[in-house]
């Protein structure tokens, strides 16, 4: 069948600059560039280009520019170029449209309509370069009160806290599975988390035994497919996370094609080489909140109550009530993943239309847990499209204890959010397990880039807090008086629990 699809991008090559070095030819995993020895020239198959910029960055003479194809369909507010293209694609394939990364639509972002506060006159701002500024955060259940005994003038605690994990900055690496990404990606995340005093999350594909030394900075995930879940895996992590849902595809399980399952991934996931790893949509032992409680306690029993258990859900319409149930079921941490949360592969229609923005979900969950007097009993991690330290500060002010970053971490390593992770050909060597591609990601360099990102954001958080006159993150957490909204309706302000700017 003749395809009616036109190239999305046009590759422009400045022939005067091109030195025929063929770096672009070798770097492009989509075979966009090719060298013609007869002409001694490099040409491109524009229809293959995904706009990942690998060739642009590595071209030694800056000869390349990628442009969106200016040839678009007749302008139409309803039948947009994107809609027409999707229709043609489906008419040709008869399949579900698959995509990677998080929802790319503009209208779900609230962070940019929230503004932060600063001290002026009545209380002093604090200079984080000269004075202490504290970001340390503990995740896990906190008691509603402490009991102490005074013996011979010494205070002794009689309340024992349940296990918690300590973060030196309130930013964790979100679940990114081994298999969706390469070993080098996992290694870089593990090393960067360790060096930065935070945690990374294995995602649902288990943990390669070579990374066990980083266990104290690892959240081991238990998802519906149970890939790679065994006693040693549960024991090695600092915390366990039950994955119920993911913001990019609420109600849908993970999906790893057999082509990506090589020997090492096969061993870690405990499945035969080359088999597809499809996680069931639900956890088949959790059809109710009571079932969740059983799994939470099964995991706590299995690890002798030595580590907190997190439950991750996609932010959906009824998140607040669900979160309340999760806390009562024994979850020590609630991870909420909003509609902009990323993925390696998801049906595009679900990604762009299912779930709710993290800002609204976080605000309503935090308030609901407070209304019920159980907010102390679990920490809340917000996830899904957090792209800057300002978003982190706003999430914490809305009520999060910490945030997960996935896409932002991948971007730090080289990702350009081209949304083609599901092809397994990521030219940056991130969402790829083919050894020839995966080796492009140097774990030493990727670790350094991740550590730098966390350091930069942490400094920026300190600058924001210092400006507010706050020198400990716990005084920002849930402190919505430091937020004001702009361009928001009364109802949006009510759900977010913030005032309008100027009020």
């Amino acid at each position, binding site marked *: 069948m003749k395809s009616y699809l036109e190239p999305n991008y046009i590759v422009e090559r400045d022939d005067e600059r091109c030195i025929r070095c063929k770096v672009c030819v070798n770097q492009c995993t989509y075979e966009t560039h090719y060298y013609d020895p007869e002409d001694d020239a490099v040409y491109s198959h524009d229809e293959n280009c995904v706009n990942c910029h690998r060739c642009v960055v590595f071209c030694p003479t800056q000869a390349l520019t990628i442009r969106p194809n200016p040839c678009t369909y007749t302008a139409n507010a309803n039948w947009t170029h994107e809609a027409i293209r999707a229709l043609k694609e489906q008419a040709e394939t008869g399949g579900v449209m698959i995509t990677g990364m998080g929802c790319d639509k503009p209208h779900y972002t609230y962070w940019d309509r929230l503004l932060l506060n600063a001290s002026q006159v009545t209380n002093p701002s604090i200079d984080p370069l000269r004075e202490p500024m504290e970001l340390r955060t503990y995740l896990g259940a906190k008691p509603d009160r402490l009991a*102490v005994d005074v013996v011979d*003038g010494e*205070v002794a605690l009689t309340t024992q806290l349940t296990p918690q994990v300590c973060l030196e900055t309130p930013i964790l690496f979100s679940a990114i599975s081994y298999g969706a990404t390469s070993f080098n990606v996992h290694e870089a995340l593990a090393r960067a988390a360790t060096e930065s005093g935070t945690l990374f999350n294995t995602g649902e594909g288990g943990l390669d035994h070579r990374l066990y030394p980083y266990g104290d900075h690892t959240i081991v995930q238990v998802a519906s497919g149970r890939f790679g879940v065994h006693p040693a895996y549960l024991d090695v992590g600092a915390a366990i996370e039950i994955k119920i849902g993911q913001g990019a595809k609420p109600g849908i399980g993970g999906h790893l094609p057999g082509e990506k399952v090589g020997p090492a991934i096969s061993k870690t996931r405990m499945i035969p080489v080359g088999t597809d790893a499809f996680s069931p949509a639900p956890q088949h032992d959790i059809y109710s909140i009571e079932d969740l409680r059983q799994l939470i306690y099964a995991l706590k029993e299995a690890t002798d109550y030595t580590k907190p258990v997190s439950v991750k859900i996609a932010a959906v319409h009824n998140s607040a009530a669900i979160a309340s149930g999760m806390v009562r079921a024994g979850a020590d941490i609630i991870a909420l993943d909003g509609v902009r949360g990323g993925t390696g592969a998801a049906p595009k229609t679900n990604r762009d239309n299912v779930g709710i923005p993290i800002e609204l979900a976080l605000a309503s969950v935090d308030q609901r847990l407070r209304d019920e007097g159980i907010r102390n009993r679990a920490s809340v991690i917000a996830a899904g499209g957090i792209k800057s330290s300002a978003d982190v500060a706003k999430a914490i002010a809305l009520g999060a204890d910490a945030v997960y970053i996935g896409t932002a971490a991948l971007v730090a390593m080289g990702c350009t959010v081209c949304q083609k992770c599901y092809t397994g050909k990521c030219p940056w060597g991130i969402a790829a397990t083919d050894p020839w591609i995966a080796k492009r990601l140097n774990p030493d360099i990727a670790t350094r880039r991740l550590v730098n990102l966390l350091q930069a954001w942490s400094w920026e958080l300190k600058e924001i807090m210092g400006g507010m006159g706050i020198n*400990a993150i716990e005084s920002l957490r849930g*402190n*919505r008086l430091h937020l004001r909204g702009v361009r928001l309706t009364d109802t949006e302000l009510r759900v977010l629990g913030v005032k309008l700017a100027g009020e």
Partner: protein
Amino acid sequence: MGWSAVNNRYGDDKVFDACSLFGMMNLKGQRFSGKDPVKAMMNMHDRGNGLGAGFAVYGLYPDYKDDYALHVMYMNRDAKRATDKYIKERFEVHVDEEVPTRAANVRDPPLVWRYFVQPRRDKRVDQHPDDYVLENVMHINTRTGNAFVFSSGKDMAVFKGVGFPEDIAQHFCLDEYEGYLWTCHSRFPTNTPGWWGGAHPFNVLDWTVVHNGELSSYGINRRYLEMYGYRCTMQTDTEVLAYAFDLLIRRHHLPMEVVAQILAPPFWDEIDEEPPQRRQLLTTLRRTYGSLLMNGPFTIIVAHQGEMIGLTDRIKLRPLAAGVKGDILYLSSEEAAIDLVARGLNRMWRPKGGELVVGRLGDRGMGEPLLREVNV
């Protein structure tokens, strides 16, 4: 142009942004009049701007010392009618009377009434009388919007309003009262309107707080306390301090020294250097009660029956001086105010940021370090 003592050619109206605090306690429990506290406050006149002042006096009503003394501000007569009825339904009222006042330089004083009461016997059997009183105070304060119980302890009272300290003292005839412990406040309101209910001290049961500063953490302090049933109605951040003390000391039974480590905790770097047991205590306190860290500049003088406490924020962004002469402990925003009323102190010091000063009935005075009940 005539001679002028000031540089400003356009009038000498410069203002100094601050509040003033003063506390004075006889550690033997001997009662004294409001003369010295008012004099000390007048010395710090420039720290306030006439938009609020107040006093808390302990050992005030020996004749009714077992009754809760509810002091209520009424903004109109309707509110009084409704509230009178409510109080009589919920309490046995032994005495109720208008709080005596006299002519003074104050504007629009509300009607202030006091009731000496006991909870009705039909209250829930399992409920502590304090909880019953607190619940009803919260109810009255949120009910009409025009009636505010601003003092509800036993054998103590708060007197406060819009004016300079000497005006409020004159209005409420404070020279005619005696107590063994006085705390005082003069206000320079910034974030909230100057209104009679918004003046300090803030009170819940017999706890009072006077506060200089601004809590940048107010938003979360308030939301945390709301989980424990407290409702903030006084339109000012100081209220959360009063509720925090009530929660931590009366309801959670934590010693004052522990409470200080919650409100103004050491930095993590300092905690990490402590020996294991103390490190575990401090870490657990911050993990559990982090939402009650009072962040931003503050100095507070907190009092309840038998105890007066001074505390600043952990980086001491507001002043506090302490002094002892004989049996009397003084706390003040400025040393000069202490010096004015107590020449020849036995001891004078400036507490460090987050360092607690506690005076307790029965403590030895005479320049020796004040006794501490517990070490934290």
